[in-house]
């Protein structure tokens, strides 16, 4: 396979591709740090469900949508993708097409996941979709609902039963509060389901009364609620940017900033104190910024948020964050300050985001000089084991929480 480059003299031709080979250096990092000595949970891993779209469409019950999707799967897509591979510089994007996996009945997504998990020393993953992160932007609510149900049936029947190391989340079609509740209750107890997912790029207020019964149900299950961010270059504000880097850096942060602000300013932490709320794929540097902004305003305008019993920043310190894409400033004291503000030792969950372009290896956490061994192990696995109530006895029979 010929990879696209800037000119014909410096072309690169590749005959085969193997994730394990690409991640040889990750395996060396794993061995040098003894990462296989303790459990690592990756709270934000991905698969490319779009590559299995014909399988998922089989699970769409609605005859009309089923036909339309078979005729053109693009109708259940919303985004403006294509920039993540940086013109092919991230070679795993084009090359994954030629990576071979065994035809042994186990789904290709599981085979590929195991390869990179093993290379990095990751024991378990929480699997998120990719293209579906933008499905909340589709104008037809019924399409989001149908697609969410089909994806959940496919995920719980074809993917999760293949390997207990691969966990999943219930995709809530949040633009329909009724359907979100139905799907939450239908799939919340399925094998391998460890939480509930709201994809953040959307325009629904999380404090709408219509969602309260869904949150009540989630609280009853004890499983976390995850807000997974994303970008929407077609958002009127984002459309002012002309470079993907800006749309990405801002978009992946701002959607969670909005939802977090609404969650706190409507005192949902007080109404649902037992839901572990997890903010995913926004990095971490936004948290100190928003905490300081909200605290400053709250001290002047507390009458506007009478439901709060403490500072917004204190609620934020009770919530959970996944690490990727973790900002790594040259001056690590900035990052150390962020870790302190989010109570990282108990509230931070390692996430790789692999195989996406800005993936973080476990060493991004393990090599931080300001963390002790206990904090590293908590962030890499212990905190997730606790909030997702994971049984790790299959790989670590003697595991005890730190």
């Amino acid at each position, binding site marked *: 396979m010929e990879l696209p480059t*800037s*000119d014909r003299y*410096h072309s*690169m031709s590749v005959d085969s591709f193997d994730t394990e080979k690409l991640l*040889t250096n990750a395996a060396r990092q794993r061995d040098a740090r003894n990462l296989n000595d303790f459990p690592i949970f990756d709270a934000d891993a991905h698969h490319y469900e779009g590559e299995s779209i014909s399988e998922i469409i089989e699970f769409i019950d609605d005859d009309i949508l089923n036909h339309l999707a078979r005729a053109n799967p693009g109708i259940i897509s919303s985004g403006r993708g294509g920039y993540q591979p940086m013109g092919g510089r991230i070679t795993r994007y084009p090359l994954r097409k030629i990576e071979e996996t065994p035809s042994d009945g186990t789904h290709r997504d599981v085979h590929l996941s195991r390869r990179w998990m093993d290379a990095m020393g990751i024991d378990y993953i929480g699997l998120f979709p990719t293209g579906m992160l933008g499905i909340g932007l589709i104008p037809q609510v019924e399409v989001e609902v149908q697609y969410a149900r089909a994806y959940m049936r496919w995920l719980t029947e074809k993917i999760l039963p293949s390997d207990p190391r691969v966990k999943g989340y219930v995709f809530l079609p949040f633009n329909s509060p009724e359907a979100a509740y139905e799907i939450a209750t239908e799939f919340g107890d399925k094998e391998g389901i460890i939480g509930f997912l709201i994809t953040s790029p959307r325009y629904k207020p999380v404090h709408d009364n219509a969602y309260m019964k869904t949150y009540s149900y989630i609280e009853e299950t004890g499983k976390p609620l995850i807000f997974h961010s994303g970008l929407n270059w077609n958002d009127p504000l984002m459309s002012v940017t002309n470079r993907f880097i800006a749309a990405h850096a801002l978009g992946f942060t701002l959607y969670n900033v909005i939802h977090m602000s609404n969650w706190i300013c409507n005192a949902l932490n007080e109404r649902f104190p037992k839901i572990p709320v997890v903010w995913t794929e926004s990095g971490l540097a936004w948290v100190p910024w928003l905490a300081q902004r909200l605290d400053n305003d709250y001290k002047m305008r507390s009458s506007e948020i009478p439901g709060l019993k403490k500072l917004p920043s204190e609620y934020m310190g009770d919530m959970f964050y996944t690490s990727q894409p973790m900002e790594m400033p040259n001056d690590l004291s900035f990052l150390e300050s962020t870790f302190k503000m989010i109570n990282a030792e108990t509230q931070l969950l390692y996430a790789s985001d692999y195989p996406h372009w800005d993936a973080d290896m476990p060493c991004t956490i393990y090599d931080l000089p300001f963390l002790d061994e206990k904090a590293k192990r908590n962030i890499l696995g212990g905190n997730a084991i606790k909030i997702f109530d994971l049984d790790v006895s299959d790989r670590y029979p003697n595991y005890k929480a730190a």
Partner: protein
Amino acid sequence: MAKEILVGKASDFKEGDKKIVPNGKTSEIGVYLVHGKWYAYANLCPHQGGPACEGLLMAKVEEVIAEDKTYQGMRFNHDEMHIVCPWHGWEFDIADGQAVADRKWSLRKFEVEVRGEDVYVIA
């Protein structure tokens, strides 16, 4: 003590070629022939440890700004070639191994010697 690693025959390289050779059991060195010059760098990205030399060789991308400061587009500058780490896209100037986005970071550089037909890297 420095050791010499035989890379191969110079005549086996054409413009833009690279060869990745083992440097002990747990590391490699990428050897390049670009614009008629030899370069060698550790196959280890200073960012997160990716195999930088296994990625693409790409020309620098430049903005075209007119005299009146208006933006006119972008173009490749083939005089400055970059090694691109395939894990995350960090780019390194082939001439000195420095990361082009932040030159405080760089690939480890090795000397290359061509003796007769043979190419050696000094590790």
